């Protein structure tokens, strides 16, 4: 393998932060915090009973329900995460919406909402209790409570880390300031407070981010020019998928190698479209809670559909910035800037990461004031994401874990008090989770992992319960539990390396090392370390022990190591001095052999592990995702699909051999036994089915347009 020239000297911007705020930006951020707290104090008087604290009094209009439904999910994890996805996987990133979210949301509105609404459940686990009994509810309640605090912890940590990287703010201060604000307003106002802030955040995220695609497209010279640049730069930026098509939605899904994700249409449609998205949108209580509290069934359905329409627009501020990142971000010398995965050794040392793509564009286009708005939108997104999770956690904990398992007969006031306290505990546990969650390569992939552990099995169980009255309590319980165990098993399987996983060989030069660089045509061709110390990982060194000083005559380290998963040796030099000058330099390079002068001190380590949560074993992903080329996202999608299959099979099999509930216990819970209330006269423009049909028509058109 020849040295890879593009990896050389991609400098991280001069200072340590990406963005610098002017006073006016800070004023904008402070005003936001004041506003949020004011809303919390204002709403306290409306949140005194259980129904009003946990369910916002079931008084919410369709528009508020729809906006809050969408923005509970349109957090900054989503804007940054999915623009990172688009940077990584090209236009395929938009499938999260175009085959994923929209069909699932329409299905929720038309098919599932009547059952949720008519059963008057207060949560999705609550529905499971009505339909299948305590067992399924407890598993769902506990797993959901666990999942929400993990996700909200991940979101908080991500926020703090991002604010630190972007603005140089202290991580701990960010985490605590934002979390305490959330704790205050959710504890005061309950769900209503969370919903208010979500609607507010919807406007802030859109108005703070929309300028980026507009200015970006002007900068790139229009849509067609942007696509041409994306395709040209992607081959350089993502060398492992050089021949993949980054600019289409479906054309490139015919085989596993023609697209950057290593997936085919089957995995996309059934894994992402059916299993993961339906699970996420139809049974994730965080989402469903937003619309089951609407004032009547028609508002709940229309609110959900309003959400679908808004969701269809989200790729404009999410996928488009990711593509623009591929097109317009250049190094000072004009070569495309290479961003790397969070788990890459070069991340944050010599290279920015995928997750930085949106902030990089913000710094590029947004001047004073606008930048404050963009950052506020981002903070608002994190905070309202956390608020949504915390209020959902408080509801599920109080009603589905605490009430049935710990204290059956309490007064309404007692449960409201419990709700307020569990909001605070939820925030504290998420803070603890935040500190524990560092090792996943991509923020969103972590979310996906949790989604397919719990949400996909939950969807299988709920949907069978709604549509098939023969499904028995035992069937529902075992189907659900087996599918959770199978998805955890699959996760373990793809990260297991029977022969040991050896991370990419790496050499790190310590600060102050002195090097000689020889360049030909501007490309580094030879690198010599004259003095200083360095650490190596998994690089075989002729005649060297774990720690030694290079003897007379010097040593040459190879540029590639045979037998390693990634053979090219990575050389990282975050802070070195060029020999004969006083110039310091930082760079990263791959696949270049390295000469060590006598006297250089070397610490050599060999790392090999049986289980590596950040790495995927291609020999194992072959069985799950049907291709050894599958990227993490592809593996997650296929895992989701298999766990849905397992859930349905087990539920059906166990149901056939166990006793079903009698019909009269299933009234209002199952299709065929649920009389729809007469909604009264309905003007045509309020008919949910009409709007659902219109949304699907537009969706098909969009898919064909970007085919």
């Amino acid at each position, binding site marked *: 393998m020849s040295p890879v020239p593009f990896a050389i000297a991609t400098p991280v911007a001069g200072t340590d932060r990406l963005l610098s705020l*002017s006073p*006016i930006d800070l*004023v*904008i951020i402070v*005003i*936001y915090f004041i*506003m949020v707290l004011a*809303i919390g104090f*204002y*709403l306290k008087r*409306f949140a005194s009973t259980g129904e*009003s604290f946990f369910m916002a*009094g079931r*008084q*919410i*209009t369709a528009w*508020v329900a729809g906006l809050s439904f969408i923005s509970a999910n349109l957090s900054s994890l989503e804007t940054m995460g999915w623009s990172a996805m688009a940077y990584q996987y090209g236009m395929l990133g938009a499938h999260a919406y175009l085959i994923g979210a929209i069909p699932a949301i329409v299905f929720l509105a038309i098919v599932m909402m009547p059952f949720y609404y008519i059963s008057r459940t207060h949560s999705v686990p609550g529905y499971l209790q009505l339909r299948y009994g305590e067992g399924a509810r407890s598993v769902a309640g506990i797993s959901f409570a666990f999942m929400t605090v993990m996700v909200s912890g991940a979101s908080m940590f991500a926020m703090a880390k991002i604010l630190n990287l972007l603005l140089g703010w202290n991580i701990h201060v960010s985490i605590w300031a934002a979390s305490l604000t959330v704790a205050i307003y959710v504890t005061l106002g309950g769900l*209503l407070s969370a*919903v*208010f802030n979500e*609607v*507010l955040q919807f*406007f802030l995220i859109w*108005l703070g981010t929309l*300028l980026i695609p507009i*200015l970006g497209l*002007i*900068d790139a010279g229009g849509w067609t020019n942007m696509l041409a640049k994306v395709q040209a730069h992607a081959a350089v930026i993502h060398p492992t998928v050089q021949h993949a098509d980054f600019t289409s939605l479906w054309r490139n899904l015919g085989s596993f190698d023609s697209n950057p994700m290593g997936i085919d249409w089957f995995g996309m449609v059934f894994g992402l479209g059916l299993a993961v998205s339906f699970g996420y949108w139809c049974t994730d209580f965080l989402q469903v809670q937003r619309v089951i509290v609407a*004032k009547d069934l028609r508002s709940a359905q229309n609110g959900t559909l309003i959400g679908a329409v808004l969701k269809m627009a989200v790729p404009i501020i999410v996928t488009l910035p990711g593509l623009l990142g591929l097109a317009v971000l250049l190094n000072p010398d004009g070569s495309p800037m290479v961003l790397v995965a969070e788990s890459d050794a070069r991340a944050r040392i010599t290279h920015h990461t995928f997750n930085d793509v949106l902030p990089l564009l913000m*710094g*590029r*286009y*947004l*001047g*004073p*004031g*606008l930048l*404050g*708005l963009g950052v506020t939108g981002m903070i608002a997104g994190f905070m309202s994401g956390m608020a949504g999770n915390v209020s959902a956690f408080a509801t599920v904990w109080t009603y589905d874990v605490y009430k049935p398992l710990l204290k059956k007969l309490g007064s309404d006031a007692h449960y409201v008090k419990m709700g307020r306290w569990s909001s605070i505990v939820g925030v504290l546990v998420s803070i603890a989770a935040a500190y524990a969650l560092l090792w996943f390569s991509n923020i969103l992939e972590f979310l996906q992992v949790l989604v397919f552990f719990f949400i996909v099995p939950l969807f299988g169980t709920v949907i069978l319960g709604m549509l098939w009255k023969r499904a028995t309590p035992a069937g529902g319980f075992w189907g659900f539990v087996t599918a959770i165990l199978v998805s955890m098993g699959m996760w373990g399987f793809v990260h297991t390396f029977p022969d040991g996983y050896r991370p990419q060989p790496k050499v790190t030069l310590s600060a102050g090392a002195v090097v000689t660089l020889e360049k030909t045509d501007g490309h580094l061709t030879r690198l010599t370390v004259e003095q200083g110390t360095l650490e190596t990982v998994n690089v075989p060194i002729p005649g060297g022990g774990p720690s030694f000083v290079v003897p007379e005559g010097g040593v040459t380290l190879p540029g590639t190591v045979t037998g390693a998963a990634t053979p090219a040796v990575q050389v990282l030099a975050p802070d070195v001095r060029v020999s004969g000058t006083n110039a310091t330099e930082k760079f990263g390079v791959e696949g270049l052999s390295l000469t060590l002068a006598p006297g250089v001190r070397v610490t050599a380590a060999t790392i090999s592990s049986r289980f590596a949560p950040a790495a995927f074993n291609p020999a194992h992903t072959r069985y799950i995702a049907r291709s050894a080329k599958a990227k993490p996202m592809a593996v997650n999608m296929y895992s989701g699909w298999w766990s849905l299959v397992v859930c349905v099979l087990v539920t059906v099999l166990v149901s056939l051999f166990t006793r079903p509930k009698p019909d009269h216990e299933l009234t209002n819970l199952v299709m065929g036994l649920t009389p729809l209330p007469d909604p009264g006269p309905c003007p045509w423009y309020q008919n949910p089915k009409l709007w659902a049909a219109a949304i699907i028509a537009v969706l098909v058109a969009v898919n064909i347009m970007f085919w």
Partner: protein
Amino acid sequence: MTNTRVSIWFFIGVLLTVYGVLITGAGVYGLAHPPAVKLAGLHAGLWWGLLLVAIGAVYTYASLPTRRQR
């Protein structure tokens, strides 16, 4: 929302108006001292600030608490 006296749209209107005024101000200042960003010549801040003021004013007016009570 029917059960709170001041509706959510009012809060949004006020916040957007305030932001709009601040950003327009920054945009006007930017006419004389262009910020160090790409495409500064388009004065995006000025236009966006005015847009925010417009949206904010519409929401504020449409959801004034005194107006709703009538």
